[in-house]
Every structure is written in C-alpha cells, then in structure tokens.
C-alpha cells in the first residue's frame, strides 16, 4: 500500500469526523464453484454514518451475509474475488496489510453470527473467549480482561454473570449464548457492529429481547450497526434505513418507513405482500412466483425481471439504472417513480 496514506488518514481528524464511518463503492464478490463463477455481489454502494442502523433485507442467497463478510475481509482468499472499495474511517480495508486488518477485526469492526452455538469455540469458556479478544486488542492483563468480560456479560443482561463466565457454550441456552456472542463482539467498543441474522436461530420471544438489547446497546455506545435479516418485522422494528437486496445488488434503499410503507421496487412490494403484517386474518398471502436467479448464470438485464409482475420484456435484456427519488432514496427499477402508492400495504 502507499505509505503516505496512513498518516493522511490519521492526521485529517477533523474532516474524518464529518465523513461517513463506512463508505462502500462498487463492491463485487464472486466465488469459484464447481459449476463455474458465482457472482454473489454485483455492485453494492452505500455509506453509513456513526450510530446509524442499516438493515439489509432479502431472501437467502441474495448476498446479505457475503456483504457483511466482505466488509470485514473475511471471505476465503483462495476461492473468492473481491473488487471495489470499502472505506472504514477513511482506510481502504482491501489495501491494508493482513496484520493491520487483524487489528481492525474485533476492535473497530466486529460481527455477531447467526448461530452462536457454531460461532463460539466449544472447548473454551465464554469468559476465556471474551478475555482473549480484550487481551489481543488492548494488551491488558488476563485478570483485567476477565474483569472486563464480567462487566460485558452484565451489560448484555446475562443473569448470574459471574457463574456464566466459566460456562462453556453448550451449557447455556440459545438466547444466553447469543447474548454472550454480543458481549464478545462489543468487548473492544467497535464503531461498527455487523449482525448476521442474529435472531434467526432463536425462539420468537427471545428474538425480541435480543433485538431490543441490540438497539439499546447501539444507542448507548453510539455504534453503527448493519443488521442482516430476512424478517421484515425485524427491519421495521430496528432499522433507521433499509436496503433491500436481490441477486447481489441493492434494489431499493431508503429510510425504514419509506421502504416498508412505500416500496418503489416490485421485489420489495412482492416481499411485503408475501409477509403477514397487521390484521390479515382470512386473506391469503401473496407469493412471488418463480425462484431467485442462478448466481452462476445471471440474466443480462434486471435479475428480477423474469419474476416481475410489471415486466414488459424490456428489462430482461437491459439492466435498469439506479433511480434516485430523493437524496438517500433509491430504487433500481424503471418503474420506480410509477410505483408510488402502487401497493396497498395493510397497516
């Protein structure tokens, strides 16, 4: 990397404060698979301010989790190709040497995984795993790190935290494990927290508690959060802004209210119509016909065109541009303006 870029980023403290915390542009990710090259992310651009909560909404395979991993540069280097830039605090994540990147992971940017049972090391205690991160990034003594770990467990409201410190992951309930995972992710006060479907593996009642906890901690610590979910309810409940993903692209972006009340992309509209919201007793749910596209053979035009109820054939061959309806409000559809109020969402 160019040596002058480190001091530049470090000394320009004043503009950096006004600049976005995270700025992603032209991000593409593809994987080598036995069936050919799969294009998982096909050009993602967005910025995130400090303390903001962005929800990535979409079905399985739309590229939400890959986006999160790409932001942390966690994708397997041998099998994946990443292009574009990810600027965190003005530093391009993909131009840092691996050693510097390791210093950022778990400190400036950290991740909460979907299945804490799988994401926690089964043969280390919760306390050891949290303390390890603190020692790694802050070089504190083991005793100090353990004291901090206890504080963190209390912060995420784990009952009898002192005892849980010495518990192994398999000795805790699912909700408790996810709390521990969150404590681990927060251990070094990250400015950006990535949460990959953090409530999917949990019971419905526990889901709500975890979301509330995340929301509360986010406000308390002034963290930016990117929350990946396929659950519209989760997005509505937590997000400042929502980005809807389809076939590795943002097809719609805007404030939670705008996107969920006034969708301007047929896919978002379809997603909303296929979800239970409010009182829908006695009314059948719509479904989106067809299936998501094969990522190894994406169509040349709009990836949603084959399933689109408004499709007239023109978008099958030519990819629609991003249509900016107002600052911060985007839909990648030729009908973005015409869609206004097109869907009656029960409220």
């Amino acid at each position, binding site marked *: 990397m160019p040596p002058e870029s480190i001091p530049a980023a470090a000394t320009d403290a004043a503009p950096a404060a006004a600049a976005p915390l995270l700025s992603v542009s032209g991000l593409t990710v593809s994987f080598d698979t036995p069936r050919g090259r799969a294009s998982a992310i096909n050009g993602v651009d967005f910025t995130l301010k400090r303390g903001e909560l962005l929800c990535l909404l979409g079905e399985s395979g739309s590229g939400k989790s890959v986006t999160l*991993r790409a932001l*942390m540069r*966690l994708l397997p280097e041998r099998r994946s190709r990443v292009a574009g830039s990810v600027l965190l605090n003005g530093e391009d994540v993909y131009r840092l040497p691996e*050693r510097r990147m*390791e*210093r*950022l*992971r*778990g*400190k400036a940017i*950290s*991740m909460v*995984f979907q*299945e804490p049972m*799988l*994401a*926690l*090391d*089964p*043969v*280390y205690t919760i306390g050891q795993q949290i303390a*390890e*991160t603190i020692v*790694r*990034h802050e070089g504190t003594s083991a005793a100090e790190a353990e004291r901090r770990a206890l504080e963190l467990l209390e912060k995420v409201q784990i009952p009898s935290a002192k005892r849980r410190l010495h518990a*192994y992951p*398999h*000795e805790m309930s699912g909700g408790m494990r996810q709390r521990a995972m969150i404590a*681990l992710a927060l251990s070094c006060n990250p400015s950006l927290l990535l949460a990959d479907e953090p409530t999917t593996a949990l019971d419905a009642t526990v889901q709500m508690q975890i979301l509330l906890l995340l929301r509360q901690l986010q406000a308390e610590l002034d963290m930016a959060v990117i929350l990946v979910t396929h659950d519209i309810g989760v997005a509505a409940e937590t997000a400042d802004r929502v980005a809807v993903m389809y076939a590795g692209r943002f097809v719609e972006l805007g404030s939670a209210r705008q996107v969920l009340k006034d969708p301007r992309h047929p896919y978002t509209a379809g997603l909303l119509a296929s979800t239970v919201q409010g009182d829908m007793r006695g009314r059948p749910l719509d479904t989106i016909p067809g299936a998501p596209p094969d990522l190894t053979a994406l169509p040349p035009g709009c990836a949603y065109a084959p399933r689109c109820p408004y499709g007239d054939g023109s978008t099958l061959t030519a990819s629609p541009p991003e249509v900016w309806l107002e600052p911060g409000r985007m839909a990648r559809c030729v009908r973005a303006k015409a869609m206004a109020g097109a869907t009656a969402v029960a409220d």
Partner: protein
Amino acid sequence: MFAYILRRILYIVPIALGVTLLVFALVHIAPGDPLNAVVGPDAPAEVVESLRRAYGFDRPLPVQYLIYLGNVLTGDLGQSVATGRPVVADLGRALGNTLILSVGAAIVGFTSGILLGALAGWHRGGLTDRLATLVTVIGVSVPHYWLGMVLVIVMAVELNLLPAMGMAPGGEGWGFTTTHLKHAVLPVITMSVIPMGIVARSVRATVAEVLQQEFVQALRAKGLGRGPVLRHVVRNVAPTIVSVLGLQFGYLLGGSILIETVFSWPGTGFLLNEAIFKRDIPLLQGTILMLGLFFVLLNLLVDIAQAALDPRMRRS
C-alpha cells in the same frame, strides 16, 4: 470431572472380569484336550487322570473359574507347559521388549502421522494434501511383513548398514547402546508405517472438519491471527486424535506376530506365536489376559484424557 473419572474407573471392574472370563473359557473353547500338550495322546489313562486332578480340570467350571480368578488376582498366571517357567516371568520380559518397539514406533508413527495429516488437512485440496494422502495410502496398504523383508534386504543385506534381526548381537537383553538402537531401527520403522497412515488420515479429516466450522471464521472476526487460530484448532482436534492415538498404541502394545517373527524380536507377538504353535495354554492365556487388560486400561486413560480436553464429554 472427579465424579466422571470415578465412574469410568468403576466401569473397568465388570469389563476386566469379562476379559478374565473370556480368557478362562479359552481353554475349553480351543479344540482338543488341553492336556494333550502336556502328555502325548497315547499316555496311560491313570496318568491323564492324575494330571487332570493336578490342573483342577475335574472340578466344576465355576469353581475352576474362581480358582483361576484368585490366581490371577494374586499375580499367578501359572507355569508354561513348554518350559515350566512361570508365565509371569516370560510375559514380563516379552512385554518389556515389545514396549521398546511400540514406544519407538509410536514416537515415529504418531509424529509423522500428525504432521502429515495436519499439513494435508490445513491445505485441503492442494498439492501438499495430495502428496500426504499418497504417502498415507501407501502406508496403510503395504503389507508390513513385506516392507520388513524389503527393508532387511536393502538396509541389511545390500547396504550392510543395519543388523537384520534380533535385539542384540548376542541374542536377547536390552540396553540403550548404539548397537541395541541399531537393532531396533528396522522393526520400529516397519511397525510405525500403519499407525502413521491411520493417524494421518484421521488428523487430516478432523482438521479439515474443524476448519470448516463457523467458529474458525468467528475467531478471525475477533482479530486473531494465524497462530492463535491454529491454537484453537489444535484444542478442538485434540480430543479426537487422543482417542485414535490411544487405540493405535493399544494395537502396537499387542506387538506384531509378523514383524517380531520377521525380525526375531522376542516380544509379545513372538511369545503368542510360540504359545499357539506349542499349544502352551497357560502362556497363551496369560499373554492374552495381559494384553486385554492393557487395552482396557488404555481406554480408561483415553476416556479421561478426552474428558479433560473436551468439556462436552464430561456430562455423559
């Protein structure tokens, strides 16, 4: 943990009793009259009858078993029919000799197997993996008595670098001298090949499996570098590998009839071979009992080690 260990130790008692019962039954399962080995088939009936009484074969079976068990518990494994020496003495010497070979083979085979397997698992699908897999497949496929003979022909006969057989120039007796170590080289290498292959294969599979688990990515997401991640992987691989190593060491302790015969190494395999051919039932019983008990003990140690390494095992 303490309760777990106590429970495992208690489980040993019925298993060990089962082993003694099987070994005791051996005399009666084996075809032919056990006394035939002592006296010829044409011995006078009254001689056979008095021997039968002397060996206690005229008593009811349960009583015979209890007497046998009592003897075993007091360390009396009977006398060899062939030599008249106490079985315990012969067995002790043979076990010592086999121990030299098996510890040597364990050191060579386990280290090379773990290294090969770890490299292959870490670089799964790469060139290292394919090379390591080739070596391990050859290791488990080549008949080791054949390998032993080839090694003798090449290293001893053709190149004249190492002695071909025996523990020492004068026959038996061991000491840690260059001469003795030289005698051990070929049998140790021959014996280490199979455990090397088996250990390498399980290490490769376990490492590859652990590396695929999400927590490895989560460890990287915490900011850990290669070294610390590797430490976590080792801790997760260890319980499985310990059990494989324990089992393989058990097989090694049994000695190898073929290898000890090829190299004229007076160990347990050699002893077993002799006992079988001479129909030396007390010697056979004693050897099998000892090896069986070793196996049971080794399994206990493996269970305890596994529980110490993997907290999930402590509950069951």
